[in-house]
């Protein structure tokens, strides 16, 4: 509960429409894109300028009140889940594109600017912003930086961390940090990398300078069907070994293909176990050469069918199925739970086999959508939240999938972040000294643990408690920790 004295001081900092305190106004902010986690915030503030952000932070710091930053609320890991007794700081109203410099190929934008709006604004200069998370119509750039968002073009064009130059950010005590520069590097430690993906735990971002890239001359996509998912996986490695770095390289399994086809009628072949979409882009001549190579490799890998989109309309249709895969799978069951592990690609057949075994054990169906180029797997677990215990079962199954990803040399999150959702699995991926260093990094920025406390990095006692319930092969994780 926030004290009336604090709330009245908070009101003094903002115009009345920028502070929400009535229950019906607060409910829309109870969750982010992972709606299984809900908590109605005590108060929501929507500052309209940087000075207000700084003042809010200073006030919260003075009163030792926690702050949860939130952008568009499309996050998928409960990173922006409200915390009791905290202020929910929504940056959506800071939504101005400040400047586009076409010659230097940069855009200066406020955190609430939508990802796609940057590319739309840059289109007149034939430039665009490369990272394209599937929520790009709605998600905002501040949240993209906080989560180090990816998308389908990561293998070639990188994640958010590779596509930003500079940040203006505020520490919890209201100090301005200018991190990065208009040049390609900065003196000292790479705080730009540290801030990217820090899930609102280190500082609050109020301005981002992003890199813009020239729009490729041409993009073309090849679709290939396989009767065996392992063959499709091998084809992916062979494309890369042939020297082609595709702009997008996506794989779907049987259930995902069928759901997508039923939903958008993309014309996908239905009698296959796996579908690959391989897009190449770049200079006109290079695209022609690469398409030729890709087709050859796919044929040699045993594709049962290969189609090349020969028009922009057909290219978009090929993609429509993949892009609609999540909502399409959503039609198969009342609820689905989207996981986000990354694995070394060679492990794909093994991992999919284990997932399918676990699917039988848990009695929950799974559709797999895979950013195959960079090894980022999105198993979608189907369940019904109205059936008692099923959400819990789905979460448990999801956790097991993430642990499997770590076991084969991968990671628990490729692009969605840890948030609150995967906080237990952090105990699997990192040792106690490593988790302690993460807490140290936070303490360097936020010694009082006021920014988004309890997210992303588990407290050590949490690992001990969780570890006690998850003993693997007789090995107690974090055996050095006290248990209570």
């Amino acid at each position, binding site marked *: 509960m926030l004290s009336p004295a604090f709330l009245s001081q908070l009101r003094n900092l903002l115009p009345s429409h920028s502070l929400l305190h009535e229950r019906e106004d607060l409910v829309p902010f109870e969750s982010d894109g992972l709606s299984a986690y809900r908590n109605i915030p005590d108060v929501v503030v929507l500052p309209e300028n940087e000075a207000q952000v700084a003042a809010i932070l200073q006030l919260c710091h003075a009163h030792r009140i926690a702050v949860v930053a939130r952008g568009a609320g499309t996050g998928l890991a409960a990173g922006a889940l409200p915390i009791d007794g905290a202020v929910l700081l929504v940056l959506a109203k800071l939504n101005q594109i400040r400047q586009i410099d*076409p*010659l*230097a*190929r940069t855009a200066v934008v406020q955190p609430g600017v939508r990802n796609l709006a940057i590319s739309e604004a840059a289109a007149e*200069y*034939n430039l665009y912003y490369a990272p394209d998370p599937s929520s790009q119509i709605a998600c905002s750039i501040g949240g993209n930086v906080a*989560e*180090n968002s990816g998308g389908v073009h*990561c*293998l070639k064009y*990188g994640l958010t*961390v590779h596509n930003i130059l500079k940040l203006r950010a505020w520490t919890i005590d209201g*100090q*301005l*940090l*200018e*991190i990065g520069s*208009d*040049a*390609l590097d900065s003196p*000292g*430690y*790479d*705080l730009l*990398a*540290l801030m990217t*993906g820090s899930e609102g735990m280190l500082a609050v971002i109020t301005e981002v300078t992003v890199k813009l890239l*020239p729009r490729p001359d041409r993009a073309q996509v090849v679709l290939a069907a396989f009767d065996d998912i392992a063959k499709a996986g091998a084809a992916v*490695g*062979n494309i*890369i070994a042939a*020297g082609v770095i595709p702009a997008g390289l996506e794989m779907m399994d049987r259930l995902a293909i069928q759901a997508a086809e039923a939903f958008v009628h993309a014309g996908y072949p239905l009698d296959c176990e796996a579908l690959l979409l391989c897009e190449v882009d*770049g*200079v006109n*001549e*290079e695209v022609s*050469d690469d398409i030729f190579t890709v087709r050859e490799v796919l044929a040699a890998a045993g594709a049962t069918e290969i189609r090349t989109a020969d028009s922009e309309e057909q290219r978009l249709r090929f993609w429509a199925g993949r892009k609609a895969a999540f909502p399409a799978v959503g039609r198969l069951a009342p609820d689905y739970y989207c996981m986000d592990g990354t*694995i070394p*690609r060679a492990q794909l057949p093994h991992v999919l086999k284990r997932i399918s075994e676990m699917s039988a054990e848990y009695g929950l169906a799974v559709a797999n959508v895979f950013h195959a180029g*960079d*090894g980022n797997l999105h198993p979608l677990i189907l369940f019904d939240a109205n059936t008692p215990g099923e959400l819990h079962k789905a979460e448990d199954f999801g956790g097991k999938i993430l642990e499997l990803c770590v076991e084969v*040399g991968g990671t*628990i999150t*490729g692009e*969605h*972040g*840890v948030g609150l959702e995967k906080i237990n699995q952090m105990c699997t*991926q*990192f*040792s106690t*000294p*490593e988790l302690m*260093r993460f807490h*140290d*990094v*936070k*303490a*360097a*920025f936020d010694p009082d643990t006021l920014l988004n406390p309890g997210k992303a*990095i588990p407290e050590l006692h949490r690992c001990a408690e969780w570890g006690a319930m998850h003993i693997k092969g007789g090995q107690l994780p974090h055996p050095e920790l006290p248990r209570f």
Partner: protein
Amino acid sequence: MLDTLIERIRAAHADNLPLILQGGGSKTFYGNADEGEVLATRALNGVVDYQPKELVLTARAGTPLAEIEALLGEQNQMLAFEPPHFGGPATLGGSIAAGLSGPRRPYAGAARDFVLGVRMIDGTGQPLRFGGQVIKNVAGYDVSRLMVGAMGTLGLITEVSLKVLPQPAAQATLQFELGEAAAIEKMNQWAGQPLPLSASSWHAGLLTVRLSGAPSAVHAAQSRLGGETLKEASAFWQRLRDQSTPFFDKRPSTLNQSLWRLSVKPTAPPLNLGDAQWIEWGGAVRWLVSDLPAATLREHAQRCGGHATLFRGKAPLDGAFAPLTPALLTLHRNLKQRFDPRGILNRGRLYPDF
């Protein structure tokens, strides 16, 4: 070997004894003078894992870059950030700790962009692992990238996993006689178009650009851009990468001149700070051989959106690297304090006060 290094650092931490971390010693000129006993990493070498189809290579810190590049070359792959060797036995660990990248950097990315994970030993002797061997990974803070360019002040890097890329099938280097302002504009204009650019340089009235990609794409760009084709192009870019051309080499040290690296917004107009200048990175780096005071150069670089580094020569009193704002300096001190509480690792190498 790893155990020996851990023991040495633990002992140094216990005894409060500063250590100088050293790989191949090819970059001892870079940064501020440090103090202490040398802790050599050369014996910690070897490629641990290389999966060409995964585009991932993992090697121990002391592995020579040349060995890694030869291995990648067998599979037609490369380190796309084109790290400088500086004519010495540069190691992977040293290259990552210094965070330096070569001519391809503005078009392909910097050393930090290709680091997927590190194993390290912090200043208390604690071995740690961050990141991993996969391209997408957002679990925890990005400590592996924090290590890039930290000059060994936060920990000794013992192993690095990198993303590697295929070598281009064809390359061509073109030259144009052009004045400085026009060359800067051209480099930026071309970078905004879908051209297969992979390096650029301007020096003494000559703009040089490298094209890399599929033969057809390189050929098409070549006929579109015109210019003279440079023979022996790979030697040209290698000399620039390793600073073995006379411009970087023959500094009359008696004249109190130093080599400065001004990292600026790529579109920054000509600096007019003297004729001894070499421009790289699409206009984003301006190398100057100059006897101007550090403060003058730093002020210029800052006005152009960047910073100035004393690269070779006598460091000014405030150090080789541009001083940080008070807020950023506090964060640096806090991080250093957490990773190396007694300040024993490369003391003073990055900033004189830690």
